[in-house]
């Protein structure tokens, strides 16, 4: 019973970075920009967050700076895909390698590696935190409780506002959007910056609130998992949140099983999150495709007046 309570209590810590990164990706990709750089931008957010935390020690400020840093670095990606119209797959991959090198170098030069920081204390959502079994789910750091609100805000923006409608139009059919007088490149730039800020927040969450220290390449492929989550959620924020929770559940379960001494083949257990992702993707792909599918112009650079 204790094991289940601890397992559920640890799940949000794993799920939140996936969820925020996936949300950032959805925001960018709904505007028609294929963003594969999440892994790199998470590293930028993680490093900036730790740097700010070491300097000022205020988690709120550190997380905001993590978001800002990721946005600033994403300007480079925006330059490549919006202005220079470089292939978005290649630009995204290049961004990841660039960020890995940059953060590794800065972390070493500034001596931020392996320096523990104080994170944020947990707050309790009373009386939910008194519930049996699931009580620990409601004893988390404040950003965990903010995450659903961030999701609500982004979904509201995308589906209930003119701005969101225009952003999606740019992603579905940029020629039509352009004819309607919407600035395609402007919307794409804003989508990249805003999405990257959320991805940076995911990175900052990992370093400032979760591990409370920086190590080169510490995101360990979590950005790639977020990319997969977006595909499996068919660019729907709520499905991405559900996917992140599923993934977080499995990741949190692995050490609990081991600590309980339950004998299972090691490599099978470590493989399960990825196997489940694959299985769900296959299941989703084989079903009937409903609304909220892949944006029509995803990955296609916009050139005005170009014939297709």
């Amino acid at each position, binding site marked *: 019973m*204790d*094991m289940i309570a*601890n397992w559920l209590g*640890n799940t949000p*810590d*794993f799920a939140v970075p996936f969820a925020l990164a996936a949300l950032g990706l959805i925001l960018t990709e709904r505007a028609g920009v294929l963003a594969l750089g999440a892994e790199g931008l998470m590293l930028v957010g993680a490093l900036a967050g730790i740097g700010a935390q070491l300097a000022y020690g205020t988690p709120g400020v550190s997380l905001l700076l993590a978001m800002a840093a990721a946005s600033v670095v994403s300007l480079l990606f925006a330059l490549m895909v919006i202005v220079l119209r470089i292939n978005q797959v290649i630009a995204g991959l290049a961004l990841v390698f660039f960020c890995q090198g940059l953060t*590794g170098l800065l*972390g*070493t030069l500034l*001596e931020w*590696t*392996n320096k*523990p920081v104080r994170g944020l204390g947990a707050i309790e959502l009373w009386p939910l935190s008194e519930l049996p079994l699931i009580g620990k789910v409601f004893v988390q750091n404040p950003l965990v409780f903010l995450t659903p609100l961030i999701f609500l805000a982004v979904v509201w923006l995308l589906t209930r506002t003119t701005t969101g409608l225009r952003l999606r139009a740019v992603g579905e059919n940029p020629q039509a959007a352009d004819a309607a007088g919407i600035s395609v490149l402007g919307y794409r730039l804003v989508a990249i910056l805003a999405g990257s800020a959320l991805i940076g927040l995911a990175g900052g969450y*990992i370093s400032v609130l*979760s*591990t*409370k*220290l920086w*190590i*080169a*390449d*510490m995101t*360990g492929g*979590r950005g790639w998992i977020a990319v997969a989550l977006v595909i499996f959620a068919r660019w729907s924020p709520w499905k991405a949140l559900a996917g992140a929770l599923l993934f977080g559940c499995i*990741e*949190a379960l*692995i*050490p*609990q*099983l*081991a*600590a*309980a*001494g*339950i*004998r*299972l*083949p*090691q*490599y099978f*257990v*470590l493989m399960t999150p990825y196997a489940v992702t694959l299985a769900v993707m296959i299941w989703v792909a084989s079903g009937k495709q409903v609304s909220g599918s892949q944006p029509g112009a995803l990955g296609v650079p916009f050139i005005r007046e170009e014939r297709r």
Partner: protein
Amino acid sequence: MLNTFMKRTLCAAVAFGLGTLAVAEEGKAGLTLDKPAKIAMLYISPRNDGGWTQAFDEARQKLEAELDTKIQYVESVPENASSIRPAVDRLVQRGANVIIGTAFGYSDTFKELADKYPDVAFLNGSGTTNSHNLESFYGRTYESQYLCGMAAGAASKTGKLGFVAANPFGQVNWTINAFALGAQQINPDATVTVVYTGAWNDPVKERAAAMALIDSGVDVLGQHVDSPTPQIVAQERGVHGTGHHRDMSEFAPDATVCSSVWVWDRFLAPELKKISAGNWVPPEHGALLSMAEGGTDAACCGPAVSEADKAKIMAAREELLKGEKKIYAGPLLDRDGTERIAAGEVMADAELWQMDWFVKGVTTQQ
């Protein structure tokens, strides 16, 4: 980093297991440098990575003082030939005639470069290849981890110990078994529950593993992963821990009671002097260094270990240093009761690298 250690270990196991990669050429004279030694080091990671490479960099500084020389170094050289070759070529062009590598993944390229530059002495930490001018070396980490196990057993109130490990390889499993055997010297009923993270340097997984172990009632955490995360978690949760690579009391002054630390300078200083003296013949299968030979040592003990227990640990350390005590000596049974080492025998190095069994009291998922 992850791949580095994984590959390093796998191949080390293969090389030491087969032991046929390098055969010393009989009758051939050893290597004599034609100029005074000019030493250069190649690091796999940044020099201040907090663990493996930082231990080498600390050794470099001690060597510079002891040998009264400058030692050049190149940081973050990845484990592929196209990165290693130009770095070494450049160093040799600048006159370096002793090259020290720090990664398993350098093994093959170092072998090739050792053939290309027969007048240059090559050394490689955690490498697997050897030749007439190339020596690979690694430490018998189970000796220092045994002492950390004793400290853990002494610091534990419940006798329930945990261990955060990277991957179930021989070189990791030997530290787990030694940790358990050491703990049982102090508390015969001590148990060790192991969580493998499947990664060498993933603080997210290490934190989850440490939390899960503490939640399950463990009050001392051993570790064989690269980051200090398990120690930091132990400090946060008010329990104790033992570190690996370097003295981790730096990160968790209240929690860390002992650390298995690399002391490469104790091996490299005499070895470099031997190379300078001339007629250097590297050992056929490389060097697997005991504590006495300068591989690892234990930084001990934190305040949670009583003076009486500390005396026991220091006595055991002395015995290890004198070679009177062998950790993997028979009779030794595994947890299922199968005899793994017969009475009066000491486990061979090849078998050590392949260790896939656990002693009594160890719980793993395998």
